[in-house]
């Protein structure tokens, strides 16, 4: 149930973002871009979501004896880590996707700031924020 709601939210955000990107006003285009990037961020978070509540800190050595989890590859015996045995319960939320989302958010912040300044300069030069008036260059 939870995941269905999340998927519908992501789909809606993608729809709204795409709609706004196709508008004529430059500011609306940028708002559409940020909504799209947030939709992607939600998508990334949703890939690492389990029903977990513990903090993802791994204790123990290369092979955690208690749970049987393997972290190191052994190509000779064709063991591809990480291997979590069936019996072990997935009680962690995947921490990696949250790090990825942080990076993605920071990057989209930087690009959005840049594009807003660019739009301000375009407004100064062209006197309009209508995207159909920007036609000095013809692809």
């Amino acid at each position, binding site marked *: 149930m939870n995941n269905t709601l999340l998927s519908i939210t992501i789909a809606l955000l993608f729809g709204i973002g795409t709609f706004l990107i196709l508008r004529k006003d430059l500011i609306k285009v940028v708002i559409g871009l940020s909504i799209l990037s947030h939709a992607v961020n939600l998508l990334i978070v949703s890939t690492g979501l389990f029903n977990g509540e513990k903090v993802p800190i791994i204790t123990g050595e290369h092979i955690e004896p208690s749970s049987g989890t393997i972290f190191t*590859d052994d190509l000779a015996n064709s063991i591809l880590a990480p291997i979590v045995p069936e019996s072990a319960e997935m009680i962690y939320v995947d921490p990696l996707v949250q790090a990825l989302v942080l990076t993605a958010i920071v990057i989209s912040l930087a690009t959005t700031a840049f594009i807003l300044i660019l739009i301000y300069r375009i407004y100064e030069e062209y006197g309009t924020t209508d995207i159909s008036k920007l036609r000095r260059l013809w692809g």
Partner: protein
Amino acid sequence: MYISNHIPIILIVLPIVLSTITVILRTMPSFQKGINLFASLILFALSIVLLFNVWNNGILVYEVGEWGKYGIILVADLLSSGLVVVSSLVSLMALIYSLDYMDSRALNTTYYALFNLLVAGLNGTFLTGDIFNMFVFFEILLLSSCGLVVASGKGGFTKIPDKMEAAFKYLMLNMLGSIVMLIAIAALYATVGTLNMADIAVKIETLNAAGTMPWHIYVIALLFIVVFGNKAAIFPLHYWLPDVHPSAPSPISAMLSGIMIKVGVYGILRVCYLIFHDAMFILQPIIIILALLTIIIGAISAIGQNDVKRLLAYSSISQIGYVILGVGMGTAYALAATFVYLVNHAVAKSMLFLTAGGIIHHARTRDMRKMGGMVKTAPLMSGIFLIGSMSIAGLPPMGGFIAKFVLFDAGLLGEYYIPIIIALLFAILTLFYMFRAWLLMFWGEKATDEYGDYHTHTVSTRMAIPMVILAGIVLILGIYPEPLMALSTSIANELLDPQPYITAVLERSVR
């Protein structure tokens, strides 16, 4: 540990550190210049050392923090270290050139900082072994190149509104591209649970061997083709290039056309041949058709151009089509030909863009119809432009001939007859538009006296040196191509058999 094992990280960290230092040192322009030139030379030397190291000792893996395959790793194999050498060479030349070319207001404030970030982004993209880290370096590339596109050169031959519009197009398309890339990465991570490229490759191979490869792997592969196709300006996403590359100042055009569009080709090579090795039978026809369309569109559009830099930009589109064609054909010989073509085009096109900057300064116009007869007033540039034109058109003593020859040879041996016929036909158009440009600019009568009153701007030594060096390299690549061929053949074998790459990455143990 020896210093040579740390070269991959130095190649990335040094430019980043330098970019922060140069922002602080804005009040000391000459010191800024000196430290930048020195660091660029060091980077070039280090990249050559790295290439020899990898050539002699095999793939070099550098772990950033001892996290094994779970952390970020840098992998220098022959493909990435070879591309790092090319990009360091071109960026060194562009840096020397821009000392005299750029407007001092742009040069002394943030130009060096952005330029160094661009270099760091390029080196990082080529060297990283982690797919998400590749995305991060793509964004560094995007932001720094956007800042550089709007920087203005001396004389202001490109209007500011044009620059703004071009930068906006570039930024919009590439932000959409990075959103698509994030979707692809998230889908890939949700499927295989890892971001390390070698690890992903092993896992997809295992899935394929077990017959349980999910169908959306093909969709992810196509999404990656869209992303890298956008970077490389392949056919449906090519239209930003002829606006952006001419609007940028000439040294930056050289970087963008010489190296930046090759980043897309590198991405396709790396991702398709390492990760989606088993999905290639679907991707290959798509890549070949897109490459042919790119060749046709670029060549036809280039014929009608009157702006010299726009012509070169359209020619870049057409030439990147040939590179992608080799990627699509996918035999060992064709992949070797791809790398030869890529290096030759990088050197020749960056040289042509640098020369175009000099020509525009000399004639004080960008319109080729208003030039003419410049062979008398600018003999050096006319010779260099001729060498570049011959290389791009693929005439014998130049490097471009070798590149085109091996590419077509590989296509014929691989029995891709119809694509080769089309490519050959449009190679003749390449000859036509390059020589039309040369004749318009240098041959004939001096068109008008409009610009005669001005004090004609001769090319300074610091602008001439990079052009001459690059022209020399184009000639050497044509006369003595054996080392490059040997390197390319090894690269192709490495791409087709990624097992050494995978073993080198995965044998690391977690701390």
